[in-house]
């Protein structure tokens, strides 16, 4: 397996980030692995990490006593899981569970927030990337709200 320093700059989320900033990000990163079924994070717990998915699939889930476990979205290789580390109150809103064996890069939210505070240019670059992820997810959610394939009114 390739090293983090080799892999991370090629991940779509970090594409185009300047090498100096990349070095800073690498300082907050570590490789992690999850077995199928294992939780990456759970609703309500402190959002201190976000995950860059290298392999496998992660499901964002909500659990309801009556309906059971519903999947809100799935995330795969090339995507990232979690942005609550960036927005107060820094708590996860959904459960994230590995539906297959998952290899990911965990980035320490505390560490990254600190670096961003010190280096607004890095903060802006990361913010832009997170904003793009949020934009895609919002579009995804909005279009799915339309229930396009469902029974027409």
């Amino acid at each position, binding site marked *: 397996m390739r090293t983090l320093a080799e892999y991370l700059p090629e991940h779509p989320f970090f594409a185009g980030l300047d090498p100096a900033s990349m070095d800073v990000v690498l300082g907050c990163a570590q490789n992690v692995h999850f077995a199928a079924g294992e939780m990456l994070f759970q609703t309500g717990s402190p959002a201190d990490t976000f995950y860059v998915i290298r392999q496998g699939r992660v499901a964002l889930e909500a659990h309801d006593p009556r309906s059971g476990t519903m*999947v809100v979205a*799935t995330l795969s290789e090339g995507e990232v899981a979690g942005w609550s580390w960036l927005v107060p109150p820094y708590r996860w809103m959904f459960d994230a569970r590995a539906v297959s064996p998952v290899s990911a890069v965990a980035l320490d939210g505390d560490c990254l927030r600190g670096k961003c505070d010190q280096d607004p240019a890095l903060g802006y670059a990361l913010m832009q990337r997170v904003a793009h992820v949020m934009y*895609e997810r919002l*579009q*995804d959610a909005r*279009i*799915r709200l339309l229930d396009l*394939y469902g029974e027409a009114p």
Partner: protein
Amino acid sequence: MVPRLFGVVRTYPDTLDTVTLALEPLDGPPLAFRAGQFTMLHAFGVGEVPISISGDPTRPDPLLHTVRDVGAVTHALVTAAPGTAVGVRGPFGSGWEVADGTGGDVVVVAGGIGLAPLRPAILEVVSRRSDYGRVVLLYGARSPADILFADDMATWAQRHGIVVEVTVDYGPPGWSGRVGLVTTLVARAGFDPLHSLALVCGPEVMMRYAATALSARGVPDTRIRLSMERNMRCGIGLCGHCQLRELFLCVDGPVLSYDRLAPLLDVREL
């Protein structure tokens, strides 16, 4: 304008509300058609509806239509017993002309029942698989129970090297597949945008987003084809109902390239 008579050979339930109808001509040779074309199916005593052909263009007998039970005519069709006579006019309209993608990659983006009109195109690719490079099918359904042609997709993936990605809008307990919008799969699917032919069919909103995503990936707008739906009635461009500005979609379409459609899709109620 006079329908040919076909008899229902059998019906295959696809999902709770969707059935594939196998028809056999009662009055002559099988109906030759091109992938992407539709017919007007007439349930005698009830009425007529436009339905895309979902069978194999190289084997048009029996003639397959995948019909969703959403109105009086479609209800009569999906519940037709074997032996029932059905009127067929057509085939009408333009096809996918998937052979234009020979030598390159083919990306198929389907939403909901929109997979049915694409099935003939995929079967055409499968029948000449070596003519094409990577073939990707991105399919979005409402829920796992609404997924069409699951057996076909497994065959296409296992036997014909087609990359099949299925995603649903609603992931119930027990679903371990993808949940999310089909159009977001476009950004990360493995194909060469500059040498691809993209075929898109689904609800118009979904097609707009899919075409936008394909265009953003770098697929030329002339190489993105959409199958449009309007009120097809006569099938021969005479009755006027299916007009989209200067287009008679029943003859100029239903399959049209995105460069032609893009300015028309942005105007409401056109």
